[in-house]
């Protein structure tokens, strides 16, 4: 029942967002005809009318939405105005780049962020804690494109450890090529995750059951793992989920700086050229990706805390 309700809510979200996205593109200023014709010397009124008819641009708004939505239900995302290729082909070749970048970045910020947070919480008030807090505060304050530019000029141009651009071939090549972009993307998130981890762990440490466990003489390592960290995981997972979902839609700048042809660069180009079918498909992907991540987080909760499951069943 819960699952059904959940599914219904997701479908409703998709329908509403697809409508909002379509309406947004329709209302956006600028005319795709200029890009569809290309050569300004060919822009005769007859040609403009012919192109409008060909791409259904002459139909009323709701009619256009209806055509798009019914095609979508048949699994047809349409063809890009600009590339004249099926949108699914365009996304198919670019999604792996963005997804692998976000996955790599996700691993980095979760592992490093949580680790730094734990160390910081356990060494609360020491120089190590102050150092970690200081470094992560600094890291959050630098925009990721600045980080990206510095990483390129130091590690790719000066030291030549990494490649300047492109996603790389094969698994190892991909890892090698995506290291700098993933670091640039993850740096800000590391700071947030380590802060959240530190804060919740510090709160947990002073709770009664932890004190009790400690007073029983339980090993400090076990206390931390079983009681402090485990009970802190809720907020940490929520935070990581939110950041990850945001990243799926926020790779634009890093992709541009590192010359990666991913979803982000495609979206910016599509917006600039009024390539409606591509923009709509990418924004829908972003909505779906966001929903997928939040569902995943919701599924993880009961594993972390049995009370969540008990509550939702009752």
């Amino acid at each position, binding site marked *: 029942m819960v699952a059904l309700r959940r599914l219904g809510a997701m479908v409703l979200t998709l329908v509403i967002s697809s409508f909002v996205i379509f309406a947004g593109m329709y209302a956006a200023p600028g005319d795709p005809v200029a890009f569809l014709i290309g050569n*300004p010397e060919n822009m005769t009124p007859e040609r403009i009318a012919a192109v409008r008819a060909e791409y259904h641009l002459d139909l009323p708004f709701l009619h256009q939405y209806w055509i798009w939505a019914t095609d979508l239900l048949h699994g047809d995302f349409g063809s890009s105005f600009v590339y*004249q290729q099926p949108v699914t082909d365009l996304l198919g070749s670019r999604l792996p780049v963005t997804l692998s970048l976000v996955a790599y970045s996700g691993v980095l910020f979760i592992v490093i962020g949580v680790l730094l947070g734990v160390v910081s919480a356990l060494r609360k008030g020491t120089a190590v804690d102050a150092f970690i807090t200081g470094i992560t505060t600094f890291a959050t304050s630098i925009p990721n494109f600045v980080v990206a530019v510095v990483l390129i000029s130091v590690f790719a*141009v000066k030291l*030549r450890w990494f490649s300047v651009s*492109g996603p790389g071939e094969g698994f190892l090549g991909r890892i090698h090529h995506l290291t700098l972009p993933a670091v640039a993307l993850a740096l800000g998130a590391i700071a947030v995750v380590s802060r959240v981890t530190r804060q919740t762990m510090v709160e947990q440490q002073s709770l009664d059951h932890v004190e009790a466990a400690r007073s029983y003489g339980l090993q400090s390592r076990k206390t931390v793992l079983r009681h402090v960290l485990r009970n802190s995981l809720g907020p940490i997972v929520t935070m990581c989920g939110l950041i990850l979902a945001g990243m799926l839609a926020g790779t634009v700048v890093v992709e541009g700086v590192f010359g990666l042809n991913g979803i982000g660069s495609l979206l910016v180009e599509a*917006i600039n050229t009024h390539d409606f079918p591509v923009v709509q498909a990418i924004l829908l992907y972003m909505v779906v990706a966001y929903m997928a991540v939040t569902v995943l987080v919701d599924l993880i909760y009961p594993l972390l805390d049995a009370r969540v499951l008990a509550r939702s069943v009752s």
Partner: protein
Amino acid sequence: MSASSLKRFTTGTALAAAGLLVAAGCGDGSSPAQSPVLDQIKLGNSTPAAAGQLDKAIWFMPKEPRSLDLDNDAANSQSDLILANVCDRLLQLQPDLTLKPGLAEKYAWKDATTLVFTIRQGVTFHDGTPLTADDVLWSLDRHRADGAAESDEYVNVTGVSKTGPNEVTVKFKQSDAVFVEAIAGDAGVVLSRKGVESQGKKYGTPAGTDACTGPFQLKEWQSGKSITLTKAPNYWNKPKAAKTDEITFKWGSDDVIVNSLKTGEATGSYLENLSSATQLATGGATTVSQGPDTRVWSMMITDRGGLKDVRLRKALAMSIDRAGVAKAAFSGLGQPWKEPVGSGAWGYEKDKFKAAYDALPGLPAKPEQSDLDAAKKLVQEVGETQPLIIASDGSPVRNVIANAFVDAAQKIGLKATITQIPTAQYDPYDEAVRKSVDVLSDDYFVSKNDPVGFYKNGASTSTVQWLLNDPAYDALVSKGRGALDDAARAGIAIELAKKWSEAMPWIPVVDSPSTVALSSKVTGVPASGCYRYAPWAADLGTKGA
């Protein structure tokens, strides 16, 4: 597409900021002082000839091509850059911007309205099938079909037919000299009918392959990643066979291109953003060469009305600091320019065109006090004027041009302000945009190396200028197109340039030459603007044998 093609600078994105930082971050301590950089840049039609065979090249460009079918409107200048090497045309453009026979071993005007091409024998397409006159006929018909990108080149053509086993004849309603030049461009590409038709909708997309005869063949287009060409095994023109075995095209922002060249990850690139060149001219890892092109940045005057009076346009043309714009926006790599089309258009009668250019009055590189005084007088004659609006999109070049415009206007007693329009909407060919501002700046280039190929845009039917509407000019355009004799056509072209300059529907600002950056290990490619249509990559090779 053929007649001319518009390129939109997209430097106004969020990445522009990042670009500046890269420039700062990567400077190896060498200050980009003006003169040493300019000294490092070689000028000419071509880079020195290559001595040895290069096995692999990586070539960078600003964007991914949208289609590899040149008859498709979606095809952009990146499509041209690649297919120039894959597809031969009936005539071939040379680095010095003259024409030589290509797949037509000769052509002749049988009479004023009949043009006969003799098709070269013994040429095969990349799939091994022989080139026939039927393929040529089919290709020309495909180019002139309604809606095809090149159809505007065929305005005067009434019919194309096969008139012999290796002979194709084009009939015109009036003689058309510009058509011959267009045949060296995309309007004269010869495709294999079978090769194109067997692919159906796949032709021109990443799933398709090429159907041409050029020195390179398409190996693979990985959508969103790269495009690879390999040397064609049996190229008909043996001495011009490719000196590079495989060339892979990739794309990225200006910073990506500069960094890839600096680190040796890229072999070369034709630069669209000239300020990148200053970082590549020094340092020893790369060389930069410049050659003539037709591209010029102009201020396009809209039909909004603020500059309806030609005296105001002339006064402004006299007062713009072109040298200042060239220095600030093009790092000194562009030249102050008096015509809306660059010296690359002088594909014949060069000296005549040069002399006529030099004689054009009222467009100083740097206005003297006397120019400003004369301009002020014109403004006073006009009397009451409304405040002028020039649009920028925040990109460096447009910002500089907009500021130069406001500066010039204020010096001669006109009120002017700058308004910002987002890059995506910055479109001089959009009527709604034109209604809101008086001036838009844009760069423009034409595909034919003939001033007539540009000045035909001054005709009253033109869709790229909105002020010139003169039956005498229209008559001259049609006379120019029809003048088969070069000397006569040059005379008419010069007349057109004068009339354009008198009406000033665009105010020319800076000429942006063709600019190529190469890894210092390689050489051979043309530096002139011929790279859009001539097989430039075939000449790319190593320096040593």
